[in-house]
């Protein structure tokens, strides 16, 4: 391998879950350095998402775009990642300025990468610059060396494949002796051709005897990586992982982890069965409550959905029923995989592959196209991972083009073929066109925010339609906010979830808040104040998980039986107390839940300020498409007319019109008013003005009112 730069080092030690060291890489200058963190940085920004936020706040400006030299690609675990005695500690966050949103995105991903990175001595890597040639970065604790190396090339097919290149580069680096002590991240050609490229996190699964991958899917982090000409980052350390975090109180760690593992073992089989079925189990429940995003979020329920219930995958693809965790020690083990899946379409047709998935989101993305074919879901899963594109954005972009075609905004001539709901062959063709940047795929590859403008232009050029009026119509069903495509839940009937999506700082991704059930099904948030309280609490707690390097599923999807007797069962405080015990036992802190909320609110505000700086932080950018707050078309209204008429009778004081078209207009106007009212109340609760800008006092409270912040706020006064 041709080494460009190398750096001999001794891995900084881990104490209390941290090394206080960040690896700094400059790909333009080909330099490697280690930044030592002071106590203030660590205590204020915690790790993971917090570190990514602070580094990007400091090192980028309002002019920074995803392809700017100064844009950072940060990969960071957190003080609580890398602990096999506690479930769900394999998570890390990738943070950067997103190609889709032009503001901060963080995408969380599982696997062995961050635990091994920590063993190599680093709490985070921060990569700036753009290499003039394709390179890989190796961080090798065993060799005591960090190196920037010209990326080996294997063949065009392998080099273009996110999964294939990962396998090839790890075999190359280890002389075909891959162990569980090594991990890598890669991306694929789809990250070059689209703005929603993902990052694959590779690790050896000894049960399956092959490399497996998890994905940092959202927001185009892979596109940033590919733009930097960074083909892979490899981390290697033979250090044993048990006790490697050097917790201050090892007994407390063991106690908290053992108790949580016991809870999962006892309760998951009585609840969601995630350990057996993985997240596709959600398809059945989302279908029951009209939450599946069918036909571009038009309809939440279909008789066909049973074709993709989780037992179908269990019987057809997950037959070997292996223990499928994404990191050691997690007995929720929900990262399902399938072997010997034969691809029936696309450039790799005829090939037999292992598929890591599907997750619920991937299955949901396919229902977005009106498709309920389990084999197509498996193929879609594999191809997106191999191309290196986000299954969610890919699905929602395809659905948007399908609806645009079917509503007459695009012609068969514009696309090259038809795009109808349920048409697997042409949907498949569209996906490959997008990932290869071919034909109409070149437009789709830019995401919905860009594509809708192109479609409006095309339509107004081809017909007598007015551009602005066309764009207004397209915006009704263009399912994106801030430039990021929606994740896989219909929010129409839950005002709280509309807020959960609209106020989400990165864009409409549910990892900030998932309140649909509490609101729509449990009806536990009847008042605005209750919705607001939830819209503050849940995003803060979820932020914390992303800052400390933990998976939130053992907390959020396995309910402690004692939670039923608490004030707010959905918060699952009896389980969360185990996480607090784990935190304090690892780091030596004495925090309680209020301290954690304060820590998280600081990070949330910092992210808000980055949004404001990047021009995505005002009320305008928290608005959601009409389809996300109610039926956008008469067909949608009529599909559930009885429900909507009942809703109008309960929620509208004025006389209800006689015909359904007028009822629809009244419903839409009412829903818009409710959302506007929600914005007012939530902003007030969060310490923002009515335009969504934080007050200076709010920032001062969290020691964030520095000169940069002052300068930004001045522009909005």
């Amino acid at each position: 391998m041709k080494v460009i730069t190398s750096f001999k080092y001794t891995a900084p030690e881990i104490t209390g879950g941290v090394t206080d060291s960040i690896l700094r890489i400059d790909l333009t200058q080909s330099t490697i350095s280690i930044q030592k963190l002071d106590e203030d940085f660590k205590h204020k920004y915690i790790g993971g998402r917090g570190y990514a936020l602070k580094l990007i706040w400091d090192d980028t400006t309002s002019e920074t775009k995803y392809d700017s030299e100064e844009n950072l690609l940060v990969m960071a675990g957190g003080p609580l990642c890398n602990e096999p005695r506690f479930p769900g500690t394999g998570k890390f966050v990738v943070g950067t300025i997103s190609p889709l949103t032009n503001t901060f995105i963080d995408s969380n991903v599982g696997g062995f990468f961050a635990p091994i990175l920590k063993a190599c001595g680093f709490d985070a890597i921060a990569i700036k610059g753009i290499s003039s040639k394709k390179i890989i970065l190796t961080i090798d604790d065993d060799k005591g060396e960090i190196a920037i190396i010209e990326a080996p090339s294997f063949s065009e097919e392998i080099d273009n494949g996110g999964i294939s290149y990962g396998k090839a580069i790890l075999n190359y680096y280890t002389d075909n002796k891959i162990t569980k002590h090594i991990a890598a991240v890669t991306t694929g050609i789809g990250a070059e051709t689209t703005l929603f490229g993902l990052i694959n996190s590779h690790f050896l699964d000894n049960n399956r005897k092959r490399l497996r991958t998890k994905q940092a899917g959202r927001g185009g982090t892979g596109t940033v990586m590919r733009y930097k000409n960074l083909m892979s980052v490899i981390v290697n350390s033979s250090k044993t992982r048990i006790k490697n975090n050097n917790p201050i109180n090892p007994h407390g760690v063991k106690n908290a982890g053992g108790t949580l593992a016991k809870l999962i073992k006892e309760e998951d089989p009585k609840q969601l069965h995630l350990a057996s079925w993985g997240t596709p189990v959600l398809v059945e429940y989302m279908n029951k409550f009209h939450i599946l995003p069918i036909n571009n979020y038009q309809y939440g329920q279909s008789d066909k959905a049973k074709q993709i219930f989780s037992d179908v995958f269990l019987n057809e693809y997950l037959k070997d029923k292996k223990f499928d965790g994404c990191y050691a020690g997690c007995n929720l083990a929900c990262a399902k995989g399938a072997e010997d899946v034969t691809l029936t379409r696309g450039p790799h047709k005829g090939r037999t592959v292992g598929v890591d998935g599907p997750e619920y989101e991937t299955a949901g993305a396919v229902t977005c196209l009106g498709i309920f074919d389990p084999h197509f879901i498996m193929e879609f899963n594999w191809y997106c991972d191999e191309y290196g594109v986000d299954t969610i954005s890919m699905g929602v972009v395809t659905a948007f083009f399908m609806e645009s075609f079917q509503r007459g905004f695009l012609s068969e001539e514009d696309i090259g073929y038809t795009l109808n709901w349920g048409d697997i062959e042409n949907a498949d063709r569209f996906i490959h066109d997008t990932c290869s940047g071919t034909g109409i795929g070149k437009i789709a590859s830019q995401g919905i925010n860009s594509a809708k403008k192109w479609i409006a232009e095309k339509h107004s050029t081809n017909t007598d339609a007015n551009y602005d009026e066309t764009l207004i119509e397209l915006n009704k069903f263009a399912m994106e906010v801030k430039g990021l495509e929606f994740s896989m839940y219909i929010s129409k009937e839950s005002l709280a979830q509309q807020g959960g999506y609209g106020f989400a700082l990165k864009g409409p991704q549910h990892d900030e808040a998932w309140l649909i059930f509490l609101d729509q099904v449990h009806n536990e948030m009847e008042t605005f104040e209750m919705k607001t309280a939830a819209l503050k609490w849940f995003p803060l707690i979820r932020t914390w998980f992303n800052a400390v390097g933990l998976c939130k599923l053992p907390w959020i999807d396995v309910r402690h039986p004692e939670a039923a007797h608490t004030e707010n069962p959905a918060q699952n405080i009896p389980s969360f107390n185990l996480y607090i015990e784990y935190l304090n036992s690892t780091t030596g802190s004495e925090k309680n839940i209020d301290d954690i909320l304060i820590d998280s609110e600081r990070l949330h505000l910092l992210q808000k300020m980055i949004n404001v700086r990047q021009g995505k932080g005002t009320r305008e950018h928290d608005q959601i498409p009409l389809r996300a707050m109610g039926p956008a078309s008469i067909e949608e209204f009529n599909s559930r007319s009885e429900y909507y008429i009942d809703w109008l009778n309960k929620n509208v004081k004025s006389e209800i019109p006689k015909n359904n078209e007028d009822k629809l207009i009244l419903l839409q106007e009412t829903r818009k008013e409710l959302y506007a009212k929600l914005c007012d109340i939530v902003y007030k609760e969060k310490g923002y003005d009515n335009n969504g800008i934080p007050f200076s006092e709010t920032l001062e409270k969290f020691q964030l009112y520095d000169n940069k912040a002052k300068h930004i706020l001045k522009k909005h006064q």
Partner: protein
Amino acid sequence: MSISITLMGHHRIIAKRDIIKIPKEKINSVSDAFLFLKKIYPEIIINENTTLVTVNDKISHMDESIKANDNIAFLPVFGGG
């Protein structure tokens, strides 16, 4: 006259069906339906503290009275991943 219990997830797999119909005279409350289900399918484990009860797709509770043609479901609670 009857009431029905919708079976979902692993309940559906254990019972090998997605709906059970029960004569109304046997069931007066959700709790009766719960006990009936446990009796005919003892392998179905339901913890009342971690189960969502719906009647006609609306959130309910064990003490709720049941009318003819009502549909009951016992669902896991979940928080959204």
